[in-house]
């Protein structure tokens, strides 16, 4: 009579999971002045808000979220990149007969590997959710900040445009953001 054995396979794995997430949107800046001039006004205003310039890109990092404004394309991107070391483990046991012990052990090892892969995927999923939550929390504030920047740049551009048309006599701005520029042509 064949003997029964209990096979137990136990493994753990340490893996590094990396997730990235990001969104992109146009800035909706009007072409009041030539593109290059609008870009320079935008760069100047963004610098005041803590952005650093690298060629045509203005960059700022807040709470792991990288905000990039492309001065040439007139777009803004918010990105997050997170890496984490995770440890997963899995154990499987099975009762097998002596004759089939070797094959059964191989199958059990494959099952454990698949369980480890699943475990790593689950950790990656969790990290991805956390990254998305972090990015989501930042986005509303970033948008509000950039809306303010766009409004300021638009006002500056209008003043520059008016100045090029003649002599500015008066500039008034109300609390709602409406601006009136009187120009003597």
């Amino acid at each position, binding site marked *: 009579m064949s003997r029964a054995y209990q096979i137990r396979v136990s493994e753990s794995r340490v893996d590094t999971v990396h997730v990235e*997430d*990001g*969104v*992109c*949107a*146009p800035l*909706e800046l009007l072409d009041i002045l030539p593109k290059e001039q609008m870009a320079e006004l935008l760069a100047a205003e963004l610098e005041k808000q803590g952005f650093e310039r690298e060629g045509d890109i203005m960059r700022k990092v807040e709470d792991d979220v990288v905000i990039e404004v492309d001065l040439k394309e007139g777009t*803004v991107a*918010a990105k997050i990149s997170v890496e984490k070391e995770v440890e997963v483990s899995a154990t499987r046991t099975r009762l097998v007969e002596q004759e089939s012990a070797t094959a059964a052990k191989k199958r059990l090892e494959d099952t454990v590997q698949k369980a480890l892969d699943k475990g790593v995927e689950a950790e990656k999923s969790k990290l*991805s959710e956390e*990254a*998305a939550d972090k*990015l*989501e*929390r930042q*986005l*509303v504030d*970033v*948008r509000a900040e*950039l809306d303010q920047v766009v409004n300021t740049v638009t006002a500056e551009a209008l003043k520059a445009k008016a100045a090029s048309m003649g002599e500015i006599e008066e500039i008034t701005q109300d609390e709602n953001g409406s601006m009136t520029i009187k120009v003597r042509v």
Partner: protein
Amino acid sequence: MGILKRTLALGVTKRLAHMGGWQKQKFKVGDRIVEGRTWERHPNLELRFSRFTMRLLRWMTASPMNNAECPVLKSTPNTIADHLMLYLSVDLLDRLNCGEITRQKASRSSPLIWLGFANLFVSQDEAESLDFGPWVEGQGAALIEALSEDLADRWRRMEWRKQRIFSGRQMRVLGGAQTATLAAFMDAAAKAGRYDLGYFLIEAAAAVLASAQDARQFAGRLESRGTMRERSEARRAAGAFLKSIQRLGRWAEDAATVRFFDDEYEGAQLFLSRFERISEKGMQHADRIIKNLEALDSAAIQDQPGEQA
């Protein structure tokens, strides 16, 4: 065969008339604007069916079209009339929830099917190589004119259904299919000078914009799961139709610059009069909705009842 010929001749013609061909409409025929029903504007319109139509009918009668074991339809349309027959078949089978017909190569490679049923395809790959050339001239254009009312109704319903879509993936696929189909169609129409073939888009857009208060109409039920990129792309895809019709606004701007002594003056004026259904106000409304859907934080906004999205 005689019975089949007679059935096709009478049945397809009658169906085409019912779907909108009976209406007295103004379209460009040659260099003139002609008003009349489809057969009055195109008295020489012929519908020639090839073997494909016979194979399609055989396949429909013999195949279980509501399950995955449905055999492959090994034929593709050869004539304009074949495409029309396929269109009528997809319409019928869609109403019966028999989706297998849109998985067939015949449907996936037919520009007319994409134009009427972009929402039924699960992948937009084939939409990117659609050739609408045959559909903006001759018999193809005549059929588009006749189906104008039906197409408007389909695109209207496609947009109204978006407010029930929960899956971000489904919205991205739909938006991609809409964008690719309308881009190919409008490119071909513009190249052929047949801006009037876009009337169905004007009608659909007018109805959609009249009933849409804000972006919630298009993306209100989208899930909050997945990466921000996926959620953002889904919301952007929800605005695909509105984004495509911005091109109609540019067509209207061009039409407004056509002078009274130019050859295209009559056609331009007709387009402008039809475009009044949307008007400048409607286009601004569309722009606001698109801006909202494409905003940096669009996927982060949690809409509450009563709040503007």
